[in-house]
């Protein structure tokens, strides 16, 4: 997996600046839409550490996103400085347990077991009273460091989400350049050889799984903070599949691919109702087209 080139990172930074300037030239609706895209990008980016980084296709990832979101509900109104790390930690602990078990398998079995474990987290909030019921629940947001008025909210959340996404991207960009990142890429390229050369493949994969889970928890936390609503749907495996779609759309080999894919899919979901109400059909056909035609993703086109 390659990070964007110097020019690519410059373009990303420019796009970031354009988003940051949105409060100056657009209204609440479009800022909320941008926040949705930014959160989707965080979620897909966290999954890219597994897919593009280590070659692991996990369907449990939405479970960690949802856990991060529900942590906000379960904590009640505390400081965001507490809720954010707790959300990341909760998701990381769940990812440690689920990863330790499902990484005992490979290939199809890994897919199937992550699917089942992800659904287990889904059932935890869907079937039990723990998360306030199957229809979802409105939540009190954690306190930001200063008081934010209702009118300021869309702009503040937009900038906050942008900052978190930028930090996540920069962190992963640096991570993929470490010995750890290179070892992950080696595992993706040839797991058997890496094992034979003495790499502790299992521990490396588990570390990536836990870190990706924690980052998904952060994304879920930001979603709960932004929307003030959580529901069991956040944990369903369809969400994991959608994140995989963002990765494929954006380009599986590029670290910035999921960001492009998340923006593209959010825009598609926003504007396709103008043409047809058959949303799922549109999404299904887009996936078919992407799988059949777009082998290197948007990042491959805009190389």
């Amino acid at each position, binding site marked *: 997996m390659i990070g964007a080139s110097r020019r690519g990172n410059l373009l990303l930074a420019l796009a970031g600046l354009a988003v940051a300037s949105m409060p100056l030239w657009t209204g609440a609706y479009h800022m909320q839409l941008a926040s949705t895209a930014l959160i989707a990008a965080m979620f897909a980016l966290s999954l890219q550490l597994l897919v593009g980084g280590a070659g692991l296709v996990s369907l449990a990832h939405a479970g960690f996103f949802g856990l991060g979101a529900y942590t906000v509900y379960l904590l009640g109104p505390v400081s965001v400085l507490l809720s954010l790390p707790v959300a990341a930690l909760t998701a990381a602990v769940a990812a440690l347990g689920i990863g330790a078990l499902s990484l005992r398998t490979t290939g199809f079995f890994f897919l199937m077991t992550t699917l089942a474990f992800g659904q287990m987290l889904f059932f935890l909030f869907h079937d039990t009273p723990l998360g306030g019921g199957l229809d979802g629940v409105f939540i009190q947001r954690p306190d930001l460091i200063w008081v934010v008025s209702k009118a300021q909210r869309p702009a503040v959340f937009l900038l906050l989400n942008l900052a978190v996404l930028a930090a996540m991207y920069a962190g992963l960009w640096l991570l993929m350049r470490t010995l750890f990142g*290179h*070892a992950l890429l080696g595992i993706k390229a040839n797991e058997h050889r890496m094992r034979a050369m*003495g790499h502790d493949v299992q521990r490396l994969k588990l570390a990536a799984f836990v870190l990706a889970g924690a980052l998904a928890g952060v994304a879920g936390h930001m979603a709960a903070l932004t929307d003030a609503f959580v529901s069991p749907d956040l944990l369903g495996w369809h969400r994991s599949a959608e994140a995989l779609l963002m990765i494929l759309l954006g380009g599986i080999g590029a670290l910035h691919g999921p960001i492009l894919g998340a923006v593209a899919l959010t825009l598609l979901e926003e504007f396709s109702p103008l043409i047809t109400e058959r949303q799922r059909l549109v999404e299904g056909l887009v996936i078919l087209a992407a799988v059949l035609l777009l082998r290197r993703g948007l990042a491959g086109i805009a190389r």
Partner: protein
Amino acid sequence: MMEARGLSRRFGGLLAVADLSLTLRVGELHAVIGPNGAGKSTLVNLLAGELAPTQGTIWLDGADITDFSVGQRAKAGVGRTFQRTNLMLNMTVLENVRLAAQASCGGMLRRAARVQAPIVAAREALRRVGLDPTGDALARTLSHGQLRQLEIAMALAGQPRVLLLDEPLAGSGAEDAEPLVALMRKLSREHAVLLVEHDMDVVFAVADVITVMVDGRVLAHGMPAEIRASAAVRDAYLGHVVA
């Protein structure tokens, strides 16, 4: 020094390796030959740790490593190459070898470009096999002979004392063989080398000791001249090849 005693491996009803013992010494190239299905590859996999023996013990410098996994053996000093090229083809030659050298590195969160030890080790391994000018090329662009050299460089990068070469010439033409033969001669001075190879000209050119396997058992063991002179070996095997 690597030593195996009474090594056996059973697959269902088939005894692929039966009560086999051998010793690999530094400075000695030990070739294992035998017809197809004699159990040579199984032997390499038993020594490398890919397979667990049904019976028998393996020592490395006096320590019992029978229960070590592949990775643990690699770290303990057992390097191996694969019969079928087994690389990261979309990475550069240097990256392939550096990943091999990196296996024993701690401090995984250091920037890869700043950690010198594995890079130095990788360059040294590439230099030893004569691939140093190709470091920045993608592995998939190498010729077949170069890929075989890269296999060996990756085994060397882990600083092994024992080197298991599983048909290093597999699929090579005569023009690839010559540099590999020279390379094996050099390697056997500093490592304990086990060589599994079908090309008898190569084996007799480089081997210090030869073990002949048939049906999982040792048929004969000795210096190349002794093996060449052995009537039993000729009848069972060599006769068909050397004629």
